[in-house]
Each structure stands twice: as C-alpha cells, then as structure tokens.
C-alpha cells in the first residue's frame, strides 16, 4: 500500500532512501497508536487481554514503536535534506540502503519477539535476546549492537557527504548533533546490579536525547524546512539556529539534573536540576517566535512587492511545523516546567503527570515536525511546485492535535487527583496507589484519555490516507 507513494521525481538516491525510511515510520506510528489504545483500554477494563497481552507488553511496544518510528523518520529526514544542503548525492547510498533493510528486518524481529515471547527467565540470555526491561531502551542487546552498526553506516554516510559537499551552517549543526546523539546510545548498553547506577546512565540516553540532542535536531530540521518552504534567508535562519543551540544545550545538558532528584543521587542535583531545567522552556519560546516571525516577514515582503497569495510552497508541511513550534513550547516547555522543581516533583514524580507531559511533549516536539518532513518528502517525490492542504490534510492535522491535547489534559486531571490523594494525602504505597486509582475523578480522566486516543487514531487514519493520495492528486492537478 505504501508503495503507492512514488518517488520518481526525486533527483537523488539519498532522498529516495529517505522516503523508504518515511514509509516504515508511518507504519510504526500506526502500530504505536494501536498499542496505546490497548493500554488505555486496560486502565478502564483491567481484565482485557489479561495474561494474554498484558499492559506491560502493550505499553512496551507502544513506547518502543514511538522511539523507533521517530528514529526512522529522523534518519529519513537527514537522508532527505542531505543532497539539498550539500548539493551532492550521498557518498554511500548503496550501503545506506543495505543498512535500511538490515534495520527494518531487525526491528521486525524485535517487535515479534516482544509480542509473542514477551518475557524470559531471569538470565543474561533474556537481556541478550528477548528484552532488556529498561523503559524506552528495551531492545535486546543483539539489537543494540545491530543498531550501533547501522547508525555508524548512516553517520559515516552523512559525515563523508558533508565533508565532500557544501558545508552549510544547518548541516554543521546536524553533523555535530548526530555525533552526540549516536554516541549517547552507548551509555545504555551495559548491565549493573546497582539500580541507582542503572538509572543514572539510563537518563544519559533518555534525557540527553529528548531534552538536548533531539531538540537541536528539530531546530536544524525547522531551519532547513523554513528555507525550503517559505524561502527564509539562510543567514537569518542559521543565526537563529546557533542561538537555539546555545540555549538548548546551555539549559538541556545540565537540566539532566531534574532526573537525579530521587534515584539515590546526591542532593546537589536539586539546585542544578531545578535551575537549568527551569531554563529549558526559554529556547522553545524562541523557536516558536522564530518560526512565526520568519513566516510573517517573508509574507509581508512578498505582499510589499505586490505578489498575491501565500508565500508557502507546502501548506501541510508548514501547518505541521507551526504546530511543532507551538507544541514543543506547550508540551515540552510549559508541561515540563509544571513539575520540574523538586518541591513539586517529590509529589508528582512517577504519576500520570509524567504521562501527560510525555504525550504532549513527544507529540508537540517531535511527531509534528517529522510529519511535516513526510509532506516535504511527498512534495519532492511528486515534483509538486506548490502543495496545498486537502480536506484530509486538515482533518489529519486537526484531529491528531486535538486528540493528543485532549489526552494530555485528561491525564493531567487524573494525575492531579493522583498527586493529591495518593502522594499528598496518603504518602504513596500499595493502598494509597489503588485508593487514588479507584476514585471517580481519576477514572473519568482515564475515560477521556481513551476517547481522545480514539480521536487521535481517527486523525492518524486521515493523515495516512492523505499521505498516500495527496501527491498523486497534486501532480495531476499540476499537469492539468
């Protein structure tokens, strides 16, 4: 079905490879949502698939599909922008394609094992072949090693192409950021009996990915997209990008401290984590302002020159990128700041507050811009001069965004109740936990999360349908 997305208008093999990654990413995105629906339903009806497909399995596949579809979409985005930025074909497209098939096959095997084997005995063999049991990076060790090999091939491809071609500022940031992103994965590939040590290094990947290197990745991607879609001036965009790097890394690297409040690490992380993570929303405000400012400026200049119509050459991509700019600020920035201070976090840590923030931030900061890249890919693949939103594009954008926002608010309400009753009133523990879980206000929040999850899924169906059809339709309209 996804093969119906044609790529023959693309000049570069690297971009076609990017499209291959995008196709897999869309499938995994759908899988993520289905697993989320199962897990959400189990909160309401705990007997659903009990001891057949338990919450732990649904939830593991839910978050792993999330991480992997984003990594696929990120790799795809880099392969897609690489020839545009460097002006040349990727140096090793053949081996890049081989790596794509290896990675896709490995992911398939890992997911099948998650679903059908689920858990293993308490031995090293389980860690090596079934799952590592560490949230987000559950992939068994053999797959870890495979991922490292594939990522090395990818990175070599990007780096060598960068050295050979034009070295733009956007690509410089991208190359440096990818090195850090890939290197950090290595900190999660060992076993220790010390749970505090385990979580100390676990956060080096999880935090330094999603609150530092991934954010810079998004900054570079947005910069590339603004140049392509609205014809923003490269000098301005690149200057913004360096300022964003400064602020994102300046706050995000030491912001890691906000995960070190309660895992056995020393008390000085309270001050460091609170200060730097409280600064983390600042670059996200800047990024939002930057996108809107550049858009307004280009539109205004076009207007002044007497050019009628929109300055956008890709409506759906810009729609998703603006949603990203605001969603990143709201989901990662505002929702993150809600519970980042230790005085608050001692009560909210490990409650539905975190789930609320997780949903809004992954969607707002990452899903949105990567979907924007899918539309950029479609535009290039069909050689469309001006890609306009269809009804399906609008429904996809509106329903998924509305659904995720609804889930975030619903979980926040459940989380608020959980924090007050379980943590504030009853001080945690087994009885405290279940007392809070069974109060009507909590269940009501979970019910609304389920409803909004279905809304999100309907939005995804529109989105996928649009991605499959918009290119061909626009091409026909263009040729007519």
């Amino acid at each position, binding site marked *: 079905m996804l093969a119906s997305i044609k790529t023959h208008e693309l000049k570069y093999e690297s971009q076609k490879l990017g499209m291959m990654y995008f196709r897999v990413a869309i499938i995994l995105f759908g899988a993520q949502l289905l697993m989320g629906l199962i897990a959400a339903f189990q909160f309401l009806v705990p007997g659903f698939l009990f001891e057949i497909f338990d919450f732990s399995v649904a939830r593991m596949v839910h978050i792993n599909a999330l991480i992997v579809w984003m990594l696929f979409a990120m790799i795809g985005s880099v392969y897609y922008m690489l020839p545009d930025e460097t002006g040349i074909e990727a140096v090793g497209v053949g081996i890049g394609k081989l790596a794509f098939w290896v990675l896709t096959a490995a992911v398939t095997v890992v997911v099948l094992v998650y679903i059908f084997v689920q858990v293993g005995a308490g031995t090293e063999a389980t860690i090596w072949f079934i799952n590592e049991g560490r949230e987000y990076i559950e992939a068994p060790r053999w797959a870890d090693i495979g991922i490292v090999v594939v990522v090395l091939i990818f990175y070599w491809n990007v780096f060598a192409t960068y050295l050979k071609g034009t070295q733009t500022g956007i690509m410089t940031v991208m190359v440096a950021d990818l090195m850090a992103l890939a290197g950090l994965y290595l900190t999660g590939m060992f076993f220790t*009996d*010390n*749970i505090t040590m385990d979580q100390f290094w676990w956060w080096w990947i999880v935090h330094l990915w999603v609150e530092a290197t991934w954010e810079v990745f998004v900054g570079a991607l947005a910069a590339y997209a603004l140049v392509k879609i609205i014809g923003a001036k490269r000098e301005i965009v690149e200057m913004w990008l360096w300022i964003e790097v400064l602020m994102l890394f*300046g706050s995000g690297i030491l912001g890691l401290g906000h995960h070190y409040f309660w*895992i056995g690490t020393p008390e000085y992380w309270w001050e460091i984590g609170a200060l730097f993570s409280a600064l983390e929303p600042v670059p996200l405000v800047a990024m939002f302002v930057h996108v809107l400012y550049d858009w307004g400026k280009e539109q205004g200049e076009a207007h002044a020159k007497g050019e009628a119509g929109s300055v956008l050459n890709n409506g759906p991509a810009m729609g998703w990128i603006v949603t990203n700019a605001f969603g990143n600020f709201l989901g990662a920035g505002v929702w993150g700041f809600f519970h980042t201070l230790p005085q608050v976090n001692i009560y909210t840590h490990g409650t539905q507050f975190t789930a609320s923030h997780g949903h809004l931030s992954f969607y707002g900061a990452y899903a949105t811009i990567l979907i924007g890249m899918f539309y950029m890919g479609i535009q290039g693949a069909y050689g469309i001069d001006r890609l306009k939103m269809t009804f399906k594009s609008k429904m996809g954008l509106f329903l998924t965004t509305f659904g995720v926002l609804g889930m975030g608010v619903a979980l926040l309400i459940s989380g608020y109740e959980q924090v007050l009753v379980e943590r504030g009133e009853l*001080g945690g523990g087994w009885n405290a936990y279940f007392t809070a879980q069974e109060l009507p206000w909590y269940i009501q929040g979970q019910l609304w999360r389920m409803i909004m999850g279905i809304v999100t899924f309907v939005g995804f169906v529109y989105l996928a349908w649009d991605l499959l059809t918009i290119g061909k339709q626009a091409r026909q309209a263009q040729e007519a």
Partner: protein
Amino acid sequence: MAKKNVSVWTSIPFWRRSAAWVTGFATILLIWLSFDTLGQISMGTDEDLKNGVTKRVPGATVINYNIDYKYSKKRGSEVPVIGDKEPFFGKEWSVDEAAGLLHLGKLTSQAKNCMNCHTLLGNGAYYAPDLTKAWLDPMWSAAGPMQAMTGKSTKEEAIAEFLVNPSQYPTHARMMPNLGITADEAVGLVAFLKHMSSIDTNGFPRNFSKTVEQFKQGGTNAR
C-alpha cells in the same frame, strides 16, 4: 558581512562561538559532577554495613539487616535507617550469596519487564504501585493482609509467594499477571526490592504510607 560596523549581535561567527563555548562548558560541568556522583552512588561493602558507614546505595548484604524509613530532622525528610540484623528467608546470607541473589533479582526485574507497569525509584509505567519502598509497605507487614492471604508468616516469604502466583491473590480488579517467575527468581526479586528500599532517595516517596490506616477508618487529621 565584510562591513566593520555590523553589530556583534547579528554576527553568525559570534553565535557559533558562543554556542560552542556554552555547550563545552555545560558538558565539562556535567562530566565533573558525574564523577562526583558516581563515587557517591557506587555500592557499599559488607565492611561499611558492619562499621555503620552510611552509603547512599548499601552493599548487597543489607538484606541481612532490618530496614526502616524514618523522618530525619536534619534532612527534613525520611531517610532509610539500617538497624539490627534480621534473618532473610530464615538465614544470614554471606557476601557472595547476597551478591548473587541481588544479581539474580535485578536480572529478573529486567527480564520480567517490571518497569512497564511499575515505577522503580519513580521511573517506569504508572499501571501499578511504585516499588521504591515496596519492601516497607504496610501491606506486607505482620499486621497487613498479605501474609495471611498468602499463608506465610514472614514478609519475604509472603512477597515471594505472591510473585510466583500473583493472579491467585487479587486485591483489586487490576491484577498482576503471572509472569512465570520461579521460586528462586522470586527470592532474588525480594532481595532486589529489599536492597532498593535501603537506597537514600532524598526522601522520595514522602510520608510513605503514613496515613493510609487513618484514611481507611474515615479519620481526618483535623480531629
């Protein structure tokens, strides 16, 4: 850009250099702090426990001691208190035995994917209770319901029995599934939980299970 009077604030090289310096400085500070932290969170030894040396993460033989979680005026929060020796599954475990048991327990906790329902040290999924201080949960104490339910007379045996056959002992509609945990693995998991409860988590969770009994009896703090 060749004009000399161009402001530094619109100069790309200035922002590039600033970004590099800030990133470098933050990274160096993080690495320096990490070295300090790694020293403080490395696991203690049996000697430390014998000599009463407080470690943030005690050695595996902490399973041979009574563990409590008490309010410390100095810290302003609860801290783990390691007390007198007490038998664990009816015996005292040697350094090697305790280390082996903790190793089995930690491996099993990962192999059974505990973290995708429970939270450990507050991290994980939110479908089941936090396990940070689960060893100290009143549910498992002599006065709590679980020892009678599982027909065991000690906390550790009750937890182990529950872990092997969790869906036989339901307390709520939401149950723990049978994960094929063996009796040996269950002992390891209990050791892992007991060890985790001895870790100094800066007072998380706060007021652990303090007022549950009061709440269940319909009491309030206002009386």
